[in-house]
């Protein structure tokens, strides 16, 4: 790749300097290149490799057999439906919020507050969100107590599900909706008012605009955001780890168990095999995302 660069520089109009500079400026790429190699490429390769190496250090596909274990299959299925459910709810509610945002000026106060709040909840949340929900619907949470004392509704009559898989649904939705706002709002505000005008001029109704123009144009962006939300909750760890300190109901928690105890299910290097499984799922989702995003970009100019 680097061999291409000198022509590129010359081609854009540098005459004298560029012939002398390439060797020197190529050196400039090295520090960051080395950094990426050690802290991005190496860990990723090690994670993949550790799933393919046996206890004796030799190449083996045996660890991958663990991915067919019923316990592991259940974990992947749990992660998948949790991600599908929370991504779907997040996409719909977040999309609705984006629709409402169209009415507020981009540099106004409402948009600033919604932008900042979305950023906090989507990117900063993690452990803090777990505490928020323990304080809300924990065994002694404010809402739990309120429901019990005021309405006589026992939230945990059937066991403390907040610390198990169902307990993750609400906290996950709580960070999925803001992420939807962050990723989908640019597409929403990218709708051209001229299209609405053209629609009205040609005798269309405002509702007809959404059915015939708005929704078809936004559909790819919506799907792309949905995929991003899926990837986000599939890979999320902190909230689940803080809520359930023992369990291993979803893949990231299963990796934690595999990392902190020597053997799980009588297998070594299970963490590597699970990581490999996650990479495959994430690669598929993000590959699909890139395809859909390309389709979506057609209308964004």
């Amino acid at each position, binding site marked *: 790749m680097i061999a291409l660069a000198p022509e*590129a520089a010359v081609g854009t109009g540098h005459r004298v300097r560029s012939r002398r500079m390439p060797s020197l400026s190529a050196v400039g790429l090295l520090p960051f290149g080395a950094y990426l190699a050690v802290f991005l490429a190496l860990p990723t390769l090690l994670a993949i490799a550790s799933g393919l190496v046996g206890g004796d250090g030799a190449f083996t596909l045996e660890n991958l057999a663990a991915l067919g274990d019923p316990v592991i299959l259940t974990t992947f299925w749990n992660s998948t439906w949790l991600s599908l459910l929370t991504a779907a709810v997040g996409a719909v509610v977040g999309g609705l919020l984006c629709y409402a945002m*169209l009415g507020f000026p981009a540099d106004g106060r409402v948009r*600033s507050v919604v932008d*900042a709040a979305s*950023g906090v909840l989507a990117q900063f949340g993690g452990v803090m969100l777990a505490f928020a929900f323990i304080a809300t619907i924990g065994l002694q949470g404010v809402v739990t107590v309120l429901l019990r004392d005021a309405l006589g509704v026992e939230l945990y009559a059937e066991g403390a599900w907040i610390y198990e898989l169902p307990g993750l649904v609400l906290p996950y939705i709580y960070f999925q909706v803001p992420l939807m706002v962050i990723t989908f709002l640019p597409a929403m505000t990218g709708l051209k008012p001229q299209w609405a005008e053209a629609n009205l001029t040609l005798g269309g109704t405002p509702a007809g605009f959404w059915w015939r123009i708005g929704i078809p144009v936004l559909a790819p962006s919506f799907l792309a955001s949905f995929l991003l939300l899926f990837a986000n909750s599939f890979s999320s760890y902190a909230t689940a780890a803080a809520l359930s300190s023992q369990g291993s109901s979803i893949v990231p928690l299963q990796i934690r168990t595999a990392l902190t105890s020597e053997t799980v299910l009588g297998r070594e290097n299970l963490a590597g095999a699970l990581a490999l499984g*996650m990479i495959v799922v994430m690669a598929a989702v993000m590959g699909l995302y890139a395809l859909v995003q390309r389709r979506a970009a057609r209308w964004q100019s």
Partner: protein
Amino acid sequence: MSAERLAPRPAVRWTILAGVGLLFLIPIASMIGFTLRDAGGGSTLEHWTGLADPANAGRYRPIWTGIGNSLVLAVVTVGIVLFLLAPTMVLITLRYPRLRRPFEFLCLLPISIPAIVLVVGLTPVYLTIGRTLGTGAWTLAFAYGITVLPYAYRAIQSNLDGIDVKTLAEAARSLGADWLTVLLRVLAPNLRGGLLAASLISVAVVLGEFTIASLLNRQNLQTAVFVVSKQDPYVAVAFALLALLFAFLLLLVIGRVGRIAGTPRRRRTRPAQETS
């Protein structure tokens, strides 16, 4: 803005905003209510006043250590962004435009690699680092530099797209400036919006990081709050509230900075309007 015609009626938009907003405020309000609760079921401020009580200093020490570590991590991570990522991006814009797409791919890649997967691969890397550089918390910044990469890249790139880097660099060079001067005194001031936004979002991400620190057994703000929550859930919730509030204010600033950085063309022709 021009989106007026597509916008829902005020009644509709305010209903949606208020509905979703109220639902989202329930957990926040519950956190506040939770920290004001006393053992007998009444309300009290003692969980908040207790934060400053020297008698509790020992119990809360993990949190102060965690905050200290997280601040150091934030500084080193911002250093990586400003002195490693940013110059490389300028170099690629000036000299290797053909590398832009592959470079962008690399920088956005960490989004699709879950932190928990990265940890599996980072464990052996950090064993080596532990032997050479020690096990200080600051070493995590190398991993965090990767975590913040997609966000920092986007912030800086949108600013780079808005200024004519080539012309600026050539003008400075033909006036006799060396490359360091070009970088520090010509390009950096033009990129300050993007660099500031990249730094602030990096700080927010670093302060919120839990996965890598917790599984590599390092202490930062998030792991400390988690540890303290085992003994004193009230204090943990109080700190969680403060941390969320701090991040919210940080991101409000980012929004403002980003808006200024995102409109460099207009800023150059009509400087007066953008400063408000």
